[in-house]
Structure formats: structure tokens, C-alpha cells
């Protein structure tokens, strides 16, 4: 039967017509492919009904199945039989979303469709915000559609008799797949799908389970599909929309270049320029890169224009759920003029009134910038408008680079994560907490996933040992208790405490311990990191959710506050990863540096920044794309070595460690290392043993692998990576955000485990993973090698000066630092104590100290 002629298809078309809508070609394509049993990936810009492409496909299938079974029942009825053959109710579609905030709106849209098509479906939501009674209801009777986060699926798998849930399942959808791909949550999604598919094959081998992803444009769509649907025997396809979203990008320029700081993350001087934009738009979303910045900008805008009070809101991940809900609701109804937000509003949700987007500071990647731009002008054929507000001068060059990348659709790839042993360990314990698992079956399943395709039998054996006996037999793990084999031959967790702790722990988003913030008089404001509040004194004030709050005390893992009389206060800085400039943007950036000085461009941003470049050229040098600039600067802080490869923070981190390591081989020396997206700094209190004639030898790609391994060993990089790994694999229990579990006696830290395993259990796979992550995830060796090769072919320019240059300034002030030393520890200590004595005396004299933070 042709789909177009089917009753379900006609019904949907008719319904769309009633609403004066016509499906896009990519939507009907999706329906056709779905009907033919395909899985795959859908790629379309936001605002074009990506959701409906696949959701309606499932609906059409259901309507057709319904009608055909009704027909056959009628036929059967003639014969006098009473058998009902209608498809059973139960979970038919699992819809995975990365963000909780997406679920509510999706559910609303889907419910509307079902109502109007008279389809008796329940649409359920399940995530961290779902109330307990709702979850219990779902347990008794699963809704037909379940909108869920990857973490919540794993929680579902951690329950007993899970297999019943998936009996009627037709399709699994991973929404915003580009966002999950490239993170460990993507690995969680892969694992969950592999298990649900396995359960279904066990019970209904004849059944076809379709797996679909929905993704924004990224550089590696093919691979994205293969990660989501790795099964050879499944038919799969990529459906791309042919419609293009128009995007208009404008930079907000100061009146004079001196108004922009060279470094630093403010740019508040430009705040007044936002007001006219906000006023002439219906609703404006203002994106900042961190929660701390969002708080600051909220304050700044209010201070600039008091009329905005009540019309300006702030939205980020640490604001209380109720409050966030209210804000999202208010954006929908259009009562808000503007919302200052973070990536918390990056994705999916249709906010119809939003017609303007402002990006504050570099978005660091083309894909993210376009995604954010897409938040405005949400309906098809409308133009998305995005303004870019630079927070320091050099970001203007980034703006020009992003414009070019957007024009040429040069969009970066998201690299999927593989061999994440921590996620695998967590998954296995999850299954053991649930119905238990058969190791042969699960090994077979995970070997099919993209993430663990390369898993070796001996690695699998080690992982099984790790969760059953604690570790390999070389290292004794007496009394270890976690997963053990039950009488029915399945591996299970028997201890209720361990099971409970594990359930609380599922998830891969690792953060510092978070505390809930609550008014003394009642009412939650949001969450805050324990490390921030531990530095606060009672009576002092901070801002959260745009409010100035006075800290009273911490009681039972709750931060009690009252409204402060102060107008301004410090904003908390939430930790969390820094985003690195993508390789794409890096290379375009290098080109733009050329163009700025040569004036071979048509971009106002580059014209504007020219004076700064001329200043850089005067005190130092502006590197052209065939040059490699090194600045040697000697100040009272010490000896600085700045290098500018323009490869992005992640590459620089490794490269800096590598160069520090190689310099350290010439002479024992200690470095403090800093980097940003343009370059890196090595800082030492001793002269740097640099052979200027042979600087290329320092950057040679020869012996790269060995030197990188050695330099990673010498820094804290692997130790830092281990923080996440220890949490995910269950070594460190950090408690559930806002929920206090009395586990003091099991408290420890990732750093401690890192040392313990390094000292006593060197073969630990989690340890190896930490080094692998530091190495491979940071960059692939080829990318670093390519960068070094480029440097080899470049002309080396060495500039010596005693003043900071415009280029080096942003790196110098970066507070995130690493260190490396080839000196003997006792030497360092003696010198450091001697020095601090001196500085203490100097400080007493000066009696003034700049506060870094």
C-alpha cells in the first residue's frame, strides 16, 4: 500500500490543511521512510517542525495500524468472533531530550496533535522534575509517548521488571542529538538504546524498532547517524531539509576602540547600546557564556534602565525549577521584554514572541552561534536576527570569523566519545540494580554500540572484575561487595543501600556539590555551589536569579537567605567547563588577522579594530597566517613566554604542556601555564632556557607521542579528568543536587582515588581512561601534529619586550592555570618560602593588595 493513499496519511494532511499548513518535503520524506521501516537522522533548521517530521510519522503509522486492525476486526466479527485485535495500549514512542526544560513544551505540542486527530494517546514526561506520584502512575500504566532525559531512561532501567515497559515500543527518538553526541550523555543514550533494543528482540524478534535522531547542522552528520544507529542490518537514511534559514548577524560596536577592554569578560560599557535593541524588539534573548555573567548582565541592564524592572528576567541552570518554569511561561505569553540566559535556553523550545537574539562574548563555535541565532524568528522563512556584543577587543575578529563561517556553512563536527569505561561501569551497575544482567548478552549488545565497538575481551573482563570483586587479583580487594551472581544466573546488586546510592547517583553531569538557596520566610531561589558559599560570611550579600540576597547561614544543606538592602553584590561564579574555540574558527581567525592589516576585507569589525592591531604592530608584531609569533616578556612577575598558534584552548593546553616539558629537559625549571583560544603562556621565576636559533626544534613533531605522554604525566591534566570519571563510575559519591544524604563516612575525593590507584593499582582502566581523555579528547594527535607542522613551515618571529602587548594581555589575566616542574620539590619549597617572606614584607609596605577574585 502506498503511504500517500493510506487513511492515516490522509487524515494528517487533512488536519494540517484545516490549520492552513502544508508539510515540508523533509517531513513527508520522513513519514515515507518511517513507513518503510527506516531508521535515521533528520537535519533541519529550527522552526521548521523537526518535531512533527518524526512524531507525525509515528502517529500516521499508529492511525493506519488502528484502522487496518479495525477493518480486520470487522471482518472477523462477521464470522462471529469477539476477539479484539486493536493494538494494545502502552509505551510506543520514547522521545529523548537533553534538557528538562524542553519536555513540557514538547508534551504540550504533542498532546494538541493527538487531541485534534482524535488519537487516544497519553503523553508523559519523565525527568528529574517529575513528581513522585506521576512516576508511580507511569509505572502502573506507561503513557504511549514518554519524553525523557538520558539519565531518566537509565533510572528506568534501574527498576525491577523493566522489560514490561517496552512491550509495545515502536520507535526511539533522540532529539537534539548533536547536543548529546560528543558528551558522555551521548554514550548513555547509546547504551540505553542498545538495552531496550535487546529486550525487545528477546521478546518479539519479529518486531521492527526504529531509531531516529534529530540534529541541527554539524560537520559530521553521517557519523552522527552511525553512532545513533550502529546496526548493520537496519535500514537507515539521512533526511535533510532543503529550506534554509536566513540569518542576519550584526556586531555592536563601541564608539571608540579604547572603550573595549583588551581582556576581561565585561564589555558592560556597551550595555547602553543594548537598550534600543531591546526596546524595538518584541522579546529579546540575551545569551551569555556563563551563569555568573548572566547574573552580572542582569544587574547591569537593570541599572541602565529602571523601566526594565518586571520586564527583564534571568534564566540559567542554577535557578529554581518553579522560577524557571514561570519565566519560560512568561516568554511564551510575551510579557517579558528580554531574558538574560545561558545555554539553558539554547535548545528546541519554540518561543514565538522572540524576534531578536543578542550574544554576549564569543560563542566559540559556529554551530552554537547559529543555534542561538535560530532562537529568534522561529517560524519558517522569517529571518533570524542576532547581535554580537564583544566583551574584549580581539573578539571583534572572532565576530568577523564567525560571519564568514556562517556564510560558507563551515560548521564544526561533534566528535562522539568512545571507550568511556566510567559510563560503562555505571551502566552495568544500573542494570544490576534493576533486573540484573547476563554478561554474555550485554557484552554482545555493547560491542555493537559505537562507543564500545573496540572494547577488548580483556577490558570487559577487567570491568566485570571491577564491579564484582573490586579489581584484578594482583591487588587484593577483600570484603568487596557490589555486584554478584544470583541463583538465576544474572548479575545483581543485593545490598539495598548500594542500590539506593547508585540510583541517586545516575547521571554524567558532574558538578561541585550544590546547595539549595531558600528564603528564611520560605520559597526557593535556586542552587549555588558549596565552594562559593563556604567563602561567604554571614551578613554578606550575593546575587542569584537576579536578586540581591543576604547570606544568613547554611542549615541542613540549605542556604538560608533574606532579601538584601544592597543594590549590588558579588555574583557567584559557577564552575563548569570552558568552551574551546573550534579548529574551524581558529583557522578562519588566522586568516582574519591577515586581512585586518592588509585591509583586504569588507568587514566593519576589522576596520574598527585596526588601531589596536597597529598598536600591537608597534610594540610587538601582528602574526600573518604564515608566521608564528613568540613574545618574550620580562616583568616583575617573572619570565613570560607567549606563543600564538591560534588553535583553540584545548590544543594550546596540550601544546603548552609539551613545550614546558621540552624546556624542562634543558634545565630543571618550574612553569605556571595559562592559555586561551589564541595562544598560551609559560611563566617562570627563572630565565627560560631558550635557544632562539633553534626554536623550531622546540616545536618539532618528532617524538611527539612520547613527549605528549610524558608531559601529560607531568601536569595535573589527567588528575583533573579523573574528577568526572571517579564520579561517574561511582567511586566518589557527591550527593544529589539539593538532597542531603548522610554519607559522611563514605566521603572521599577524586584526587585521593587518583593517587591511590596510581600508587597501588596501576592497571586500573579508569586511570588509563583519565590519561586517554586528557590526550585524545583534548585533541587528536593528528591535529596537534598538523599545528606543529604548520609552525615548522612558518616564519618564526620572536619579540622581546618588557611590557604586555595587546595580544598577550587576555592570556595573562586568565585565572585557570596549570603547572609543570622538572625541579626538585625541596628546592622549590625552600625558594618559595624565602620568596613569600620577601613579598610579605613588601606587601606590608604597600599595604594594598589587588583582589583577583
Amino acid at each position: 500500500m502506498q503511504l500517500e493513499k493510506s487513511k492515516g496519511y490522509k487524515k494528517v494532511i487533512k488536519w494540517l490543511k484545516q490549520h492552513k499548513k502544508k508539510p515540508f518535503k523533509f517531513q513527508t520524506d520522513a513519514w515515507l521512510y518511517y513507513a518503510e521501516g527506516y531508521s535515521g537522522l533528520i537535519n533541519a533548521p529550527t522552526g521548521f517542525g523537526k518535531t512533527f517530521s518524526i512524531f507525525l510519522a509515528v502517529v500516521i503509522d499508529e492511525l493506519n495500524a488502528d484502522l487496518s486492525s479495525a477493518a480486520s476486526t470487522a471482518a472477523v466479527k462477521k464470522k462471529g468472533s469477539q476477539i479484539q485485535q486493536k493494538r494494545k495500549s502502552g509505551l510506543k514512542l520514547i522521545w529523548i531530550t537533553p534538557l528538562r526544560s524542553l519536555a513540557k513544551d514538547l508534551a504540550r505540542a504533542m498532546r494538541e496533535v493527538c487531541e485534534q486527530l482524535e488519537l487516544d494517546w497519553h503523553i508523559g514526561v519523565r525527568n528529574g522534575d517529575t513528581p513522585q506520584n506521576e512516576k508511580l502512575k507511569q509505572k502502573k500504566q506507561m503513557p504511549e509517548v514518554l519524553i525523557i532525559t538520558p539519565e531518566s531512561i537509565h533510572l528506568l532501567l534501574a527498576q525491577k521488571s523493566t522489560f514490561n515497559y517496552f512491550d509495545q515500543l515502536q520507535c526511539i527518538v533522540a532529539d537534539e542529538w548533536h547536543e548529546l553526541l560528543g558528551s558522555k550523555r551521548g554514550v548513555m543514550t547509546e547504551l540505553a538504546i542498545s538495552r531496550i533494543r535487546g529486550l525487545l528482540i528477546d521478546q518479539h524478534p519479529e518486531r521492527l524498532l526504529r531509531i531516529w535522531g534529530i540534529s541541527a547542522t554539524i560537520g559530521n552528520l553521517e557519523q552522527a547517524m552511525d553512532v545513533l544507529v550502529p546496526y548493520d542490518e537496519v535500514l537507515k537514511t539521512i533526511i535533510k531539509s532543503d529550506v534554509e534559514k536566513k540569518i542576519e548577524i550584526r556586531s555592536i560596536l563601541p564608539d571608540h576602540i579604547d572603550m573595549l577592554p583588551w581582556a576581561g569578560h565585561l564589555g558592560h560599557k556597551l550595555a547602553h547600546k543594548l537598550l534600543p535593541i531591546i526596546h524595538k524588539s518584541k522579546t529579546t534573548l540575551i545569551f551569555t557564556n556563563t551563569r555568573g555573567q548572566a547574573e552580572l548582565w542582569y544587574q547591569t541592564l537593570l541599572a541602565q534602565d529602571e523601566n526594565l524592572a518586571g520586564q527583564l528576567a534571568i534564566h540559567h541552570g542554577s535557578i529554581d525549577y518553579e522560577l524557571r518554569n514561570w519565566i519560560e511561561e512568561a516568554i511564551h505569553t510575551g510579557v517579558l521584554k528580554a531574558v538574560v540566559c545561558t545555554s539553558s535556553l539554547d535548545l528546541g523550545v519554540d518561543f514565538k514572541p522572540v524576534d531578536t537574539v543578542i550574544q554576549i562574548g564569543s560563542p566559540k563555535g559556529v554551530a552554537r552561534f547559529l543555534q542561538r541565532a535560530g532562537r529568534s524568528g522561529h517560524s519558517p522563512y522569517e529571518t533570524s536576527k542576532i547581535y554580537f556584543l564583544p566583551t574584549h577587543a580581539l573578539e571583534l575578529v572572532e565576530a568577523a570569523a564567525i560571519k564568514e563561517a556562517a556564510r560558507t556553512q563551515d560548521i564544526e563536527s561533534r566528535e562522539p566519545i568512545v571507550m568511556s569505561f566510567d559510563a560503562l561501569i555505571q551502566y552495568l551497575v544500573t542494570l544490576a540494580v534493576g533486573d540484573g544482567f547476563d554478561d554474555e548478552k550485554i557484552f554482545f549488545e555493547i560491542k555493537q554500540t559505537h562507543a564500545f565497538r573496540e572494547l577488548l575481551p580483556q577490558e570487559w573482563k577487567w570491568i566485570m572484575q571491577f564491579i564484582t570483586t573490586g579489581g584484578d587479583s594482583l591487588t587484593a580487594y577483600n570484603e568487596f561487595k557490589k555486584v554478584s551472581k544470583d541463583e538465576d544466573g544474572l548479575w545483581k546488586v543485593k545490598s539495598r543501600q548500594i542500590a539506593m546510592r547508585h540510583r541517586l547517583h545516575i547521571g554524567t553531569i558532574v558538578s561541585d556539590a550544590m546547595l539549595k538557596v531558600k528564603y528564611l520566610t520560605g520559597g526557593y531561589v535556586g542552587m549555588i555551589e558549596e565552594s562559593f558559599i563556604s567563602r561567604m560570611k554571614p551578613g554578606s550579600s550575593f546575587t542569584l536569579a537576579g536578586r540581591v540576597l543576604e547570606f544568613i547561614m547554611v542549615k541542613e544543606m540549605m542556604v538560608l537567605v533574606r532579601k538584601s538592602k544592597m543594590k549590588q553584590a558579588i555574583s557567584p561564579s559557577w564552575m563548569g567547563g570552558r568552551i574551546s574555540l573550534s579548529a574551524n574558527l581558529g583557522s578562519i581567525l588566522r586568516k582574519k588577522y591577515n586581512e585586518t592589516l592588509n585591509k583586504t576585507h569588507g568587514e566593519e569589525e576589522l576596520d574598527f579594530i585596526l588601531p589596536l592591531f597597529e598598536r600591537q604592530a608597534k610594540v610587538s608584531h601582528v602574526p600573518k597566517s604564515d608566521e608564528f609569533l613568540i613574545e618574550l616578556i620580562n616583568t616583575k612577575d617573572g619570565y613570560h613566554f607567549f606563543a600564538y598558534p591560534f588553535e583553540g584552548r584545548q590544543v594550546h593546553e596540550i601544546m603548552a604542556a609539551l613545550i614546558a616539558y621540552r624546556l624542562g629537559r634543558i634545565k630543571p625549571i618550574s612553569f605556571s601555564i595559562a592559555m586561551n583560544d589564541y595562544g598560551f603562556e609559560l611563566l617562570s621565576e627563572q630565565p627560560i632556557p631558550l635557544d632562539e636559533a633553534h626554536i623550531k626544534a622546540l616545536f618539532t613533531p618528532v617524538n611527539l607521542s612520547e613527549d605528549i605522554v610524558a608531559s601529560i604525566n607531568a601536569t595535573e591534566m589527567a588528575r583533573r579528568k579523573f574528577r568526572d570519571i571517579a564520579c561517574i563510575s561511582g567511586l566518589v559519591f557527591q550527593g544529589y543536587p539539593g538532597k542531603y544524604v548522610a554519607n559522611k563516612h563514605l566521603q572521599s575525593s577524586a584526587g585521593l582515588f587518583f593517587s591511590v590507584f596510581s600508587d597501588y593499582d596501576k592497571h586500573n582502566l579508569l586511570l588509563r581512561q583519565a590519561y586517554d581523555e586528557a590526550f585524545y579528547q583534548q585533541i587528536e594527535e593528528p591535529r596537534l601534529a598538523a599545528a606543529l607542522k604548520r609552525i615548522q613551515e612558518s616564519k618564526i618571529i620572536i619579540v622581546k619586550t618588557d611590557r604586555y602587548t595587546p595580544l598577550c594581555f587576555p592570556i595573562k589575566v586568565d585565572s585557570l592555570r596549570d603547572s609543570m616542574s622538572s625541579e626538585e620539590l625541596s628546592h622549590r619549597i625552600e625558594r618559595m618560602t624565602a620568596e613569600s617572606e620577601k613579598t610579605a614584607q613588601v606587601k606590608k609596605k604597600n599595604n594594598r593588595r589587588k583582589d583577583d577574585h
Partner: protein
Amino acid sequence: MIIDCKGEQFILNKERAIFWVAKKMLIISDLHIGKSAHFRRSGIQVPDTVGLTDLHRLTSLMKEFEPDTLLVTGDMFHNNINSDANAFVDWRRGYPHLKIVLIKGNHDALKNEDYEALNIEVHTKELLCAPFRFIHDQPVERDEYYNICGHIHPGVVLYGKARQQLKFPCFYFGQHCAILPAFSVFTGLKILKPQEGDRFYALTLHKVIEVKRIR
């Protein structure tokens, strides 16, 4: 390193112990025997060797100082008797004449008969031994006794020029109290903020170093 504390001679050892020369007393704190096994029982993978290393270190201290008394200022055991604690029982048999005194800490939850079986003299709150008071956590009230305690696992950060810093476990000697580092290697650090007149002794792999001034 030898220091003077209220007129008494203390030897600070890099293995996180104080030897009180006059009393032939070895003082340590926060031994946390059984912590690693406690973790293992709860499904967290900590190798046995962690607990055994602590006992080996204790043995070498016994050889070096040959003390009459071993004084533990709290958290000797981590919650209950388990395989790690059994290793300690064996260790105890090797030193039948050693007097062991324990001032109970928040983790010391063994039964009385367990302590008796191990021949450990237990003080629930404190032990006064002029001019010192041995106690697990430092008291708020001040009196004529100088407090020697443990509990918080003190650490110190050294800052150097060119933005360098290093972190170590340490002995702390303040105006009214001294704090011992945690003896067990399987413990974290709490970084202390120095006050005027405080003395810090950082513990590196090879020796004890006095840190005179910290930022």
C-alpha cells in the same frame, strides 16, 4: 625536625607523627583503620594495600623511636571491625608491651570489649597531661592547657613567584592548639588559613619543612 612546644621537646616526623621525647610517647591522629574495607563493603573500590601501607608506616615509626606509649588523638578506627581492623589485631600482637591510648573521635564506634581485647586505653573526651590537653577536635573555650588535636586533616598551600603553588599535609602550631595531620594516607586535606603567630610544618616526601609565612 625538633621543635619546642611549651617547653617540651617534640620531634616532628615526616610520616605524620610527633614523638614527645620526655615521655617516650608517639602521638598520631586520624589513623582511620578499616576505612578502606568500609568503602569496599559499600561497593567502592579501594585496594587493601591502602590500609596495609599505614600499618607498615606505623611499624617503621616504632622501629625508629621505640616508644613506650602510642597516643592516638581520635579516629583510630573507621566505624567498625572489618578485614583491615583484623590486620591491626595482628599488628598489635607484635607489640604486647606497647601502651596504646585513644581519645575517641567521631569515627571511633567500636564496642568497648573490642577496645579491651586490643588492650587500648580509651578516653571518651580528653586526656589531660600537663601542659597539654589531648583531644580529638579543638575546644572553643580556652584555658591553661595547650590543646593537641587532630580531626580536620590540616593542609597548607605554599605560593611562589610566577603564580606557583604547592599543597602539602602539615602540622599546625597555633596560639592555643596544635593540630596533627591525618596519619592515614587515604584522607583528604583541609587547607588552613594562617593567623598571626601560627607555625606550619609542611610534610613533603622526604622531610619536614617549616613554613614561616604563607601569603
